[in-house]
């Protein structure tokens, strides 16, 4: 059932899809960044796709690839019941992807979270600011080059605060 979705996208926008398939029961398609908005609009408005239920939007960091950030979108149709995963990639020096906020209201917060965690900017988003971390936070923590234990606190610690023990790996 979901293979038909991929065929429909390929039929309507043949140059948009780089790679597609069905693995572990999930249909997925990797599309070009320039045609990303067109593909999603097709999926939302076409009568055979009708993907009006916004499920998830996230990002994966592959630092060894030239196109470092991969934005992953999950959609579902509330009337027809099928699902799809749409992926698009952005390079490290220009991590900008078109925003889906004009199409889906839910994309608002999910894109803000992806920006917060990975630093991927979404073009056309009405209010792109940090969601889960505070505004003065430096860096984007879910990138692979951000060490897990690098701490920042917006207020200073007490003078007689107990000393921070060393991380487990560094202890003799």
């Amino acid at each position: 059932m979901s293979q038909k979705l991929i065929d429909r996208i390929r039929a309507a926008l043949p140059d948009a899809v780089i790679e597609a398939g069905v693995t572990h029961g999930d249909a997925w398609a990797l599309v070009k960044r320039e045609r990303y908005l067109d593909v999603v609009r097709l999926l939302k408005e076409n009568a055979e796709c009708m993907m009006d239920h916004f499920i998830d939007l996230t990002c994966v960091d592959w630092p060894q690839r030239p196109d470092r950030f991969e934005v992953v979108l999950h959609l579902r149709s509330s009337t027809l019941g099928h699902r799809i995963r749409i992926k698009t990639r952005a390079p490290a020096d220009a991590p900008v992807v078109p925003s889906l906020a004009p199409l889906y209201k839910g994309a608002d917060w999910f894109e803000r979270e992806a920006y917060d965690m990975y630093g991927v900017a979404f073009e056309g988003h009405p209010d792109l600011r940090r969601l889960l971390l505070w505004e003065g936070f430096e860096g984007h923590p879910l990138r692979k080059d951000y060490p897990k234990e690098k701490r920042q606190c917006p207020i200073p610690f007490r003078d007689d605060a107990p000393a921070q023990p060393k991380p487990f790996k560094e202890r003799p």
Partner: protein
Amino acid sequence: MERYEERDLPLPSEPMLLNMGPSHPAMHGTTRCLVLLDGEIVRKADVQIGFLHRGFEKECEAGTWNQVFPYTDRLNYASPILNNIGYALAVEKLLDVEAPPRAQAIRVITGELSRIMDHLVCIAAFSMELGAFTPFLYLVKTRDWIYNIMEKLTGARVTHAWMRIGGLKEDIPDDFEAMVRAVLPKVEVTIRDVEGLLLRNRILMDRTVGIGVMTKENALSLGWTGPCLRSTGIPYDVRKADPYCGYDLYDFDVPVGTSGDNYDRFVVRLEEMRQSSRIVSQALDKLPGGPVRLEIPDVTLPDKHQVYTTIEGTIRHFMIIMNGEKIPPGEVYACTEATNGELGFYLVSNGGKGPYKCRVRPPCFANVSGLSEMVTGGFLADIIPSFGSINMIGGECDR
């Protein structure tokens, strides 16, 4: 002579910015709601979350596949087993295996008990915030009975970490069935009591009927799922739409509301508890025998007897614990029906010792993003029941 009524004179006013801060009795933990008020009417509401962001994904990337289970417990901490089930199903989908039938049935039983616990807490908090203290005490007492059962089964009251990849940690004790069958009628009595106190209560109905309305199209566009979506009239339940764990073997209904207001959400949750009880008693009747864990090489820990007596068992145990489970590269999205809606796990594996990315699609994140739309234009005091009926759990929303 003309008389001017004082109330007809225009009264100049400036909008006031009020901070319903992160530490607030009705903010369920840690959400800040900055509201721009014009008198009592909310003109704009900026909902800020993230005060409980504990770095779930970063922690999961640093551990092994099995070490993710305690972190999933603390996502929706009111119904921890459902998160465990969601993650276990996602990894099993990545491995293309299915847990044995007995494990699936026990997953259903414990999952539905967890769902009952979460709904009990949600209704307790919801009614306490509206001023009804008695239902809170009745419901928390009932939840303690179920906690006793879960403690007998898993060893912990709140954070169980009981599921494993390929099944359960161990089999249920002998008196588990008797205990569960004894507690279900008590849950029913509690639901009836709470219904008698609240369902046709004038104060509750005045404060919740027609308040916090969400339309179907907006709900779908926002990504709403679960009882909140069902209260708007869309009958989407993952247990019926894409059944997992053998849910298609059990006969249960899915309560669907009509108007999408707070009252509908409250009634949908009350009714869902009854349906969960139904599922539990059917699953106990049909409980099959057999093993509770699949033997997946390089993933399942060997039997303790083998670990202590044979050298192969010791080595396998050591390799799995130190080097992680061997999950082939790939990615998968698996969703289950958690208490607040569709809990999805998007796992990416590159063959390493732990997940390369372990993304949780939190149901209440999408639900809370619709809050500012629900409360704008209403009164300040209506924020409380609207927020309470969404059942935001901070651990899940902020991760």
